[in-house]
């Protein structure tokens, strides 16, 4: 039987609330339910750090990193995580000790770990955080209200051949360059696992609007239904347009082989949103492989970027093998070069918008 605990102390002050909970109204937290079997992705979990492992710090909702101590009370979000260079895990809770899957505040059950990773930080779930009506708080309830995709907002997609190929750097650099060229840019992380690193990188670059899937009500998009992810992306784009963005630069997390990314790129609604596509690659082979994968599904990148651009030899190899230009971070940051890169994409988007309007097409349909 579920035994609710009434919170007798202010949970806000006595626990570390993770970044993934940033949209949650803490005043809604009234009680704790201990029926962990009922947990579903997105639920808020009050836990106690049992043992500090791989994640020694937690990213807090206020944007600060915080050292973890055994005994810390933390509020995390139950979720799945996909990170080939860290952990892969599922939105399940072991009452004896669950795994902190991401520093941004995702708790679940670790299933795969990279060989260089130690054991996850162990968090004992004390219960699910619920409101006065004993409804479990879930980040989905705090997401933006659903919005249709705005037809008039050009979208530049940034995808990567793999993790750590340079996608986030590319988004930040392009947002910075276009911002200096006079555009109000939205930098959006459409998929991935909640964390503030990329969010902060976009903000530091001067993006006019910064958002991620958590703003659309998901702590992680891994293993979420495609329709939900697509609806979330529409909402983030709609929100960006309402906040005055003129261009959206949208990052899809992980590599082209990752399940949700691959599925999204096959999805007409996602493909149709892109006015341009930038592929971040680690090296020349990644460039070839990435272009082949994209070509197989009828897509072609406008340019390559990423770690490959650090090496003149790799750049030359990638360009020769793919026929696609490589553009470096410094060039994306340059307002003149960023504008030149975006100009044909903006023209493409404008042409498509005009054609859609003439045909009476509703992009959100």
């Amino acid at each position, binding site marked *: 039987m579920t035994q609710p605990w009434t919170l007798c102390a202010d949970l806000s002050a006595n626990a570390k609330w993770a970044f993934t909970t940033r949209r949650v109204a803490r005043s809604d937290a009234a009680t704790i339910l201990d029926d962990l079997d009922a947990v579903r992705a997105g639920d808020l979990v009050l836990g106690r750090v049992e043992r500090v492992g791989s994640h020694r710090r937690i990213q807090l909702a206020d944007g600060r990193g915080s050292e973890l101590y055994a005994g810390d009370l933390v509020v995390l979000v139950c979720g799945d995580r996909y990170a080939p260079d860290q952990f892969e895990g599922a939105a399940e809770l072991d009452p004896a000790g669950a795994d902190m899957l991401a520093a941004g505040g995702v708790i679940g059950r670790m299933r795969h770990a990279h060989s260089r990773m130690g054991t996850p930080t162990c968090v004992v779930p004390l219960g699910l955080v619920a409101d006065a009506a004993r409804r479990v708080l879930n980040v989905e309830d705090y997401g933006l209200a659903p919005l249709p995709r705005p037809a008039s907002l050009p979208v530049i997609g940034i995808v990567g051949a793999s993790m750590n190929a340079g996608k986030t750097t590319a988004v930040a650099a392009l947002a910075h360059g276009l911002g200096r060229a006079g555009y109000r840019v939205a930098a959006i992380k459409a998929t991935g696992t909640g964390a503030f690193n990329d969010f902060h990188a976009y903000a530091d670059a001067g993006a006019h609007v910064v958002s991620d899937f958590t703003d659309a009500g998901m702590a992680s998009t891994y293993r979420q239904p495609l329709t939900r992810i697509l609806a979330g992306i529409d909402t983030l784009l709609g929100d960006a347009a309402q906040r005055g963005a003129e261009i959206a630069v949208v990052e899809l997390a992980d590599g082209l082989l990752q399940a949700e990314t691959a599925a999204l790129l096959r999805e007409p609604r996602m493909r149709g949103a892109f006015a341009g596509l930038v592929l971040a690659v680690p090296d020349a082979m990644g460039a070839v492989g990435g272009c082949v994968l994209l070509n197989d599904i009828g897509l072609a990148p406008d340019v390559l970027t990423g770690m490959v651009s650090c090496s003149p030899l790799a750049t030359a190899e990638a360009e020769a093998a793919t026929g696609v230009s490589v553009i470096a971070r410094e060039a994306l940051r340059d307002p*003149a070069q960023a504008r*030149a890169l975006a*100009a044909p994409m903006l023209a493409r988007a404008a042409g498509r918008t005009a054609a859609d309007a003439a045909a009476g097409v509703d992009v959100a349909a």
Partner: protein
Amino acid sequence: MSPILTYRPAKGGNALACWLALPHTIAPDRPPLVAVHGILRGARDQAALLGRRAAAQGRVVVAPLFDETRWPGYQQVVRRGRADLALLALMTELRLTGLWQTPDFELAGYSGGAQFAHRFAMLYPNLVARLTTVSAGWYTFPDDTAFPYGVGSADGGKSDWGPRLAAGLDQFLELPITVAVGADDNQPDENTRRGPEIDHQQGIDRATRAQRWADALARAAAARRIAPRIDLRLLPGCDHDFRRCVELGELDRIVLPDSDLNPAVRGYAEARLAP
């Protein structure tokens, strides 16, 4: 009423100084005018001579000062010192002071400043609401000649700016553009860039070059099915002197017209494109 003329020193090592002509009553919803000097660096004259009419419209004149040490080749915009980045930074700073609220600005330039102005507008057409070039010595044409004479590719390297200007050409050709030159500015002088190729492409004097460039813009727009908004204005009684262009040629009225709906703008391009 005369505007308040004030000098704003450079704020930092790579920053631009400028002269500002500030109206006593600012209309912050009107775009400012950026007026760029020629190679004699007469930024103060730009602000002073255009400032009076701008003030009557409630508009600010920003006359940047590209000094010879940091921006020896500012006319070509992207050469050493990156004059474009310096102007972008200056405009961002000034806009933060609340002098205007529009995201874009009108851009005019005289002589070397006209070179800067049209190349800047080609790179950043999204930032320029209206362009006026006055007595440029030569131009970047909207053709496939290698930059800086055209927007074609030179070497494909990282300093290959032609394609970057070409990328914005459609939007550039949609701008209202006035090409002005003294009617008597029809002889090359010691500052006129000469050579067989440029003479063949552009002509030998500023008046001829202005006309050829305006015609080239009109043709390029038409080829792209863009309704050209390009005007050519010959300033009567004027040679190559900015003050005379203002005082005799009423250049201030051309740079700062009463209305954007100048019927001559469409009339010129239509006449030039007529069979």
